[in-house]
């Protein structure tokens, strides 16, 4: 074990203690009649206003892993890592309209998950099950990645042991998180998000003012980055994009933007809000976090200018670029401030991990348990089941990190993004039209999923160390349609998720046309056009927490 960093550790422990108290106290925070209902445990009573929603969704989407991995990507690859910025620029305008419809229809019918909506829209438990499983599988590795972020901080604090001892602090942190999420539900991360986001804002604002002054200004910082990429033998890096990765940059940004609100945990935050105006205001207010993310990304270049070296992870024996930002803070800031910064990242892991596990638990309960295991489940049984499922999901994520190489979670998260995109026709397009036939949607999902997974399998990593699942950038030359190479010879790269989504849509259209010709039955639509415009205060809205 390395030398423990005492001042940093004390501040970290104090702030961690504070959020633990908040997490438990949250159960009573503006509590409804009962916590034994998914409206309450899983959606915080569906009554969060603009401020709470802003902190909650911000804390949910901009995760600890993002804060650690985006600068790490800038540090090692340069301009490509900046895709997070256009991604978060386009996402809110794109989802502005669909999210309002999703909120209204879910509020009218009491839907808790995206799969609930699909079930109501198409009357098909099978399609809903596919959507639910996709959501759970895509979310699990995402939770595990929060642990990667938290562990990067803990290792910088000095807990860099080998084997199981090295993971112990992480395990303790996660047990505490699991217990208060079990007790308080969505109210816990909603309350903790205030602490997390305020800490993060303070740290980043100080960092982007203080560090450039200390490092000699932005010209100096970009110069150092330029020099590093000039000297490196890798071809894809640099402070600007090159001819080969521009298409990848744009499609990755667009694909990620389309995928973001298909993730069940993002929708959980949206559905927990009180009304349409809360969502509209947040579409304009959430980009404040994008600004933060962009500035944070530049920390990767500051680390280059400061000569920061990644820490060697003693559990895997490899240098871990995810420790770049914690190491930079450790090196440049007085230890008390580094402690605050570490706490910000650490607590930043807890908020999304809690929301993600709640979202996955909701999916399990509503679309698997209630649909297939216990059809007559009462709301209280549902809540109980979801609480238990949230524990299982969290310990599953811990097991991922403890017993399997963390690299596996990173690979899976990459795969998860491609997977969740395949639910776009059934979830997002279905908000607008029921033109697609249910069998077309299933066929499209199967096609997009299979092709996406196959393409990811065939991509080697950039440094050539691994033959499979090495990234999401597909060289166009390798794109093959039943042996036909439409872009033979091209060295440009494109995001796999984007390619597989197109395949999904094409198959869905073809099967839909066929199904309409053959007059296959297309399920029953329980929603009506007016449902998609319902708002808070409407007389016919369902009572919250009702049976």
């Amino acid at each position, binding site marked *: 074990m390395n030398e423990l960093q005492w001042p940093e550790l004390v501040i970290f422990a104090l702030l961690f203690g504070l959020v633990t108290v908040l997490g438990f106290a949250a159960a009573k925070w503006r509590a409804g009649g009962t916590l034994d209902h998914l409206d309450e445990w899983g959606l915080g009573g569906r009554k969060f206003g603009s401020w709470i929603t802003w902190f909650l969704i911000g804390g949910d989407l901009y995760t600890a892993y993002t804060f650690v991995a985006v600068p790490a990507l800038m540090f090692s690859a340069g301009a490509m890592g900046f895709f997070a910025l256009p991604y978060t620029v386009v996402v809110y305008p794109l989802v502005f309209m669909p999210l309002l419809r999703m909120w209204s229809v879910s509020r009218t019918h009491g839907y808790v998950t995206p799969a609930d909506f699909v079930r109501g829209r198409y009357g098909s438990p099978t399609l809903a099950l596919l959507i639910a499983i996709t959501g759970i599988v895509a979310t699990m590795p995402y939770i595990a990645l929060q642990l990667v972020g938290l562990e990067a901080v803990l290792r910088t604090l000095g807990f860099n042991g080998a084997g199981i001892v090295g993971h112990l602090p992480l395990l303790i942190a996660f047990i505490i998180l699991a217990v208060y999420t079990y007790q308080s539900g969505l109210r816990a991360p909603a309350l903790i998000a205030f602490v997390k986001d305020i800490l993060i804002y303070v740290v980043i604002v100080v960092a982007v003012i203080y560090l450039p002054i200390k490092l000699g200004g932005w010209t100096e*910082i970009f110069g150092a980055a330029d020099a590093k990429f000039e000297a490196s033998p890798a071809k894809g890096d640099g402070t600007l994009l090159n001819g080969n990765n521009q298409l990848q940059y744009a499609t990755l940004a667009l694909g990620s933007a389309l995928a973001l609100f298909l993730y069940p945990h993002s929708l959980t935050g949206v559905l927990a809000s009180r009304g349409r105006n809360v969502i509209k205001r947040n579409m304009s207010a959430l980009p404040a976090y994008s600004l933060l993310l962009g500035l944070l990304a530049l920390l990767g270049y500051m680390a280059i200018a400061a000569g920061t070296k990644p820490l060697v992870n003693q559990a895997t024996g490899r240098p871990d670029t995810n420790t770049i930002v914690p190491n930079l803070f450790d090196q440049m800031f007085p230890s008390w401030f580094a402690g605050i910064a570490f706490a910000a990242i650490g607590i930043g892991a807890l908020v999304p991990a809690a929301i993600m596990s709640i979202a996955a638990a909701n999916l399990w309960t509503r679309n698997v348990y209630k649909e297939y295991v216990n059809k007559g489940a009462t709301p209280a049984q549902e809540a109980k089941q979801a609480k238990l499922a949230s524990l299982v999901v969290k310990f599953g994520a811990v097991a991922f990190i403890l017993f399997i190489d963390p690299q596996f979670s990173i690979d899976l998260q990459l795969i998860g993004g491609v997977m969740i995109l395949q639910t776009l026709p059934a979830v997002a397009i279905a908000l607008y039209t029921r033109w697609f036939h249910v069998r077309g949607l299933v066929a499209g999902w199967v096609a997009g999923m299979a092709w996406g997974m196959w393409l990811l399998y065939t991509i080697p990593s950039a440094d050539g160390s691994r033959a499979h699942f090495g990234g999401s950038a597909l060289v166009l030359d390798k794109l093959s349609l039943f042996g036909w190479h439409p872009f033979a010879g091209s060295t440009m790269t494109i995001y796999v998720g984007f390619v597989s989504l197109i395949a999904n849509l094409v198959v869905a259209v073809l099967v839909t046309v066929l199904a309409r010709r053959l007059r296959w039955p297309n399920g029953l639509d329980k929603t009506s056009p007016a449902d998609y415009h319902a708002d808070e205060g409407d007389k016919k809205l369902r009572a919250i927490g009702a049976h």
Partner: protein
Amino acid sequence: MAPPGKTGLRWSPWNLLLVVPLLWLITPVFNRTGPELFGMPFYYWFQFLGIAVGVLCTSIVYVKTKDKPTTSAPGEPLDVDDLDEGAR
């Protein structure tokens, strides 16, 4: 705002503003170093600018397409944006 038709879709021309930020996906527009701003290459500060444009677009659409409330709870002001909202 147009009344809901048979499809239930409500359309306003202001919604078209939401397409504007997609410009930030066209990389040849900004993949260059100059002109620099405070020592930051064009590539970086132009993408930061995209955030402001996105906020402007969503804000305009919000203001211009504000639905008239169908019903309002008695005594509750509709634009309250404080931390107490939602308690009813």
